[in-house]
């Protein structure tokens, strides 16, 4: 990457240092890492200290203790006081130290000099970079209104400041990563229960897990609790077109035909109702629309569902009966990522409805909603910009979009079309839609419509690579964050925070500082008249016990407020009950009960491509991590031996995978771990950024191949609606 290196450590010498450091990380004294540590810190050798923090290698925020020797973070250990993570830290968590000491980190502000994506950069001082960004924001705001600037922040404890900045700057166009992930699930459960409950896995005796891969796509405490529950006799049934690690450890695995989960659960509902196996008292007292549901599911028999799902009718009937026998300590696992089909919200509604029939709400082993600890805040009254349009740029493109989340897919379309109004600026923070948003070419097209794009991140992601201005952020081990309240199933409700374990390397600056500096330049300083310390004090003003626990234990856990806490309280729905039948849907022209629509048939000589995770990759944020890279150098295409033989494809040989929107080359993994009609590849490879030195040129990018469809109701990206051809090279 042609970057200037004057005044700082060159990339080459950094690589040398890091390579040496890698060899000496554990056990021996890694003298070489002193090169990265300020002189003040390094003067007294053999100084050891431990410091609490919370992991940021994915969204889970597991508690950890950083072991620091002579100012160098040597090792990360799990914090045994962290009930959410059950005192554990996964492979990615352990590799966090390599995010800190990553030779590929962004070191100083960079301004694009060549064409977008060409990789020619000019080093700027922070003053120059911030002045330039503020000028662009002012200009775009003047010319296109403040809503002409788009903001997108990832799941991060400082993202709240990006949202605050967007609000005072005056743009409603704020999106998160969530519309590429879990909004369909949230929509479905909110529209059924009035809240998004969390599964109490550890107490469950029977779990049907459709699509989710909890032993690889880790969620704490669910992943750990599922193992504990199984050791205590919980039965796990997995429905997945792939033989995942979760499927491998399950009691039963069914390679369900992709896109037919709703058929399965409508049939389960039909069995529960027709055989009077549902919780009649619960349904009578706590739900509305049961009679409509009873009529609705009559035709959805297991025999009918067998033809759709390719799961035998006798098994569907048996599984429904077993589920009912274990109720209420039984559940259909709600899942997390639900960005799969155009009907995703309705598919998840069918999960929610079966859970309601089991009467597992607010019960041990069912769906629960512990009380979240309410932290304080600093309140400001943002200004209003009279010339702004009335609504978000993506408004009206989905039937019931979340106002505060929006939709990446629909926003991108709106930017490309310039309708209903132009968007000409974009700020991204720690999110990488170039890798996570289906149809990468469209993201590139969107970026080319912009006058100015600024990215704040730790490394040169593909999104940063396309930006006009790139600003270096510190890793989570180098910065002070606000406190963050969390829910951890029945383990606890809690609060955590982060303080710098070591000073920020290079010229990296936290996004809080960046938006505060931008606010100063945009005459909005009055809305950022506080420090993170002030913000935290306001958050903990009425919670002195939390402040004490954070200091002593690195985390605050509130235990024992998980079950039976909603008895007698109304549900947050129109009927104040669980809405099996959703009257608001009916009024908005949406089917008030989930109506099954068969997935589009896989065309001849094509495959459906599906998205998934393994336990050592967090999408694109960790594939270039030097430690995790040791576990996976490149992705490969899972393809079943029967079609592989027909196509002359051999294991580990290169293939081309092509859809209507893009293509990629990668090695084949010929395996029976996927259905003959389904192929799969990991996310986070096939990067265009030459700033990701370990993985540049390796594997293929799934976002390049996926077509961009959307869930009709929520606007969530629908990533399992793409058909591809596969051919040998």
């Amino acid at each position, binding site marked *: 990457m042609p970057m200037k290196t004057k005044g700082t450590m060159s990339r080459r010498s950094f690589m040398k240092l890091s390579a040496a450091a890698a060899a000496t990380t554990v056990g021996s004294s890694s003298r070489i890492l002193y090169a990265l540590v300020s002189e003040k810190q390094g003067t007294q050798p053999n100084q050891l200290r431990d410091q609490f923090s919370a992991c940021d290698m994915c969204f889970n925020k597991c508690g950890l203790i950083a072991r620091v020797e002579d100012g160098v973070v040597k090792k990360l250990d799990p914090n045994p006081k962290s009930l959410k993570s059950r005192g554990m830290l996964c492979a990615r968590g352990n590799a966090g130290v390599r995010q800190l000491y990553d030779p590929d980190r962004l070191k100083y502000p960079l301004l694009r000099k060549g064409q977008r994506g060409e990789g020619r950069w000019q080093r700027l001082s922070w003053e120059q970079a911030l002045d330039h960004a503020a000028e662009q924001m002012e200009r775009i705001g003047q010319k296109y209104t403040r809503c002409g600037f788009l903001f997108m922040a990832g799941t991060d404890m400082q993202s709240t400041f990006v949202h605050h900045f967007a609000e005072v700057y005056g743009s*409603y166009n704020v999106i998160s990563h969530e519309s590429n992930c879990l909004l369909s699930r949230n929509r479905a459960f*909110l*529209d059924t229960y*009035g809240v998004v409950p969390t599964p109490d896995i550890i107490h469950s005796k029977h779990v049907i897990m459709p699509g989710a891969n909890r032993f690889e796509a880790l969620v704490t405490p669910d992943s750990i609790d599922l193992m504990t529950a199984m050791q205590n006799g919980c039965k796990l049934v997995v429905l997945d077109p792939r033989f995942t690690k979760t499927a491998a450890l399950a009691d039963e695995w069914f390679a369900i035909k992709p896109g037919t989960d709703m058929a399965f659960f409508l049939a389960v509902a039909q069995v529960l109702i027709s055989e009077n196996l549902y919780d009649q008292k619960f349904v009578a007292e706590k739900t509305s629309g049961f009679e409509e549901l009873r009529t609705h599911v009559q035709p959805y028999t297991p025999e009918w569902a067998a033809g759709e799902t390719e799961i035998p009718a006798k098994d569907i009937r048996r599984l429904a009966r077993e589920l009912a026998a274990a109720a209420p300590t039984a559940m259909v696992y709600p899942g997390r990522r639900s960005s799969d089909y155009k009907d995703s919200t309705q598919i998840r509604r069918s999960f929610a409805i079966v859970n309601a029939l089991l009467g597992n709400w607010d019960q041990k082993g069912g769906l629960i909603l512990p009380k979240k600890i*309410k932290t*304080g*805040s600093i*309140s400001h*009254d*943002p*200004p*209003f910009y009279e010339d*702004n349009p*009335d*609504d978000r740029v993506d408004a009206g493109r989905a039937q*019931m979009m*979340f*106002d*505060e989340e929006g939709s990446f897919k629909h926003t991108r379309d709106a930017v490309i079309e310039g309708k209903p109004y132009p968007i000409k600026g974009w700020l991204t923070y720690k999110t990488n839609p170039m890798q996570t948003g289906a149809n990468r070419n469209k993201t590139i097209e969107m970026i080319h419509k912009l006058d100015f794009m600024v990215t704040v991140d730790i490394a040169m992601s593909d999104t940063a690579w396309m930006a006009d201005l790139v600003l270096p952020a510190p890793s989570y081990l180098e910065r002070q964050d606000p406190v963050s309240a969390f829910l951890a199933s029945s383990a606890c409700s809690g609060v955590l925070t982060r303080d710098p374990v070591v000073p920020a390397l290079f010229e990296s600056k936290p996004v809080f500082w960046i938006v505060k500096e931008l606010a100063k330049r945009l005459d909005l300083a009055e809305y950022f008249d506080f420090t993170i310390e002030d913000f935290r004090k306001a958050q903990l003003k009425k919670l002195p016990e939390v402040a004490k626990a954070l200091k002593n234990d690195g985390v605050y856990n509130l235990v024992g407020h998980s079950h039976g806490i909603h008895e007698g309280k109304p549900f*947050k*729905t*129109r009927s*104040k009950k669980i809405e099996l039948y959703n009257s*608001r849907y009916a009024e908005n022209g949406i089917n008030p009960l989930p109506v099954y629509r068969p997935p589009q048939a896989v065309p001849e000589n094509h495959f459906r491509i599906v998205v998934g995770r393994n336990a050592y990759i967090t999408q694109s944020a960790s594939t270039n991590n030097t430690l995790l890279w040791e576990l996976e150098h490149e992705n490969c295409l899972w393809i079943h031996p029967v079609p592989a033989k027909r196509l002359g494809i051999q294991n580990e040989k290169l293939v081309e995978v092509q859809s209507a929107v893009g293509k990629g080359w990668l090695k084949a993994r010929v395996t029976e771990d996927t259905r003959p009609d389904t192929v799969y590849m990991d996310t986070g490879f096939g990067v265009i950024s030459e700033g990701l030195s370990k993985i540049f040129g390796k594997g293929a990018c799934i976002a390049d191949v996926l077509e961009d469809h959307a869930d009709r109701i929520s606007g969530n990206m629908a990533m399992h609606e793409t058909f591809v051809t596969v051919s040998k090279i």
Partner: protein
Amino acid sequence: MLKRIGSVLIILFFVFAAIGIVMAADKGNARKGKYLFRKNCRTCHCEDGSAKPLSPIDKTQAQWDEVFKSIDKLSCTKEWAKLSEKDRNDMYAHLWGHAFDSPSPAKCK
């Protein structure tokens, strides 16, 4: 025949479009309403304020309907009298649109 169907469809389109505009106008501008709510209500309805903290999720959509039907019965009715009809509509759009049982309940802040 086809022409006639086309004309009917065009007329229907404009009728529905007009209805849509009227409905939108009735509900007001929720974005402006959020600003106005903060400016006019939050001064008292806040932590340590003279009135109970208030957020859109403190009431259902039906309850907000009731509040706006009988503003003259509120203890702060004099303050409401200072607001224009449009400002009231905008605030209603915000509060109703992010109510307890709405599709986009306001997030606690």
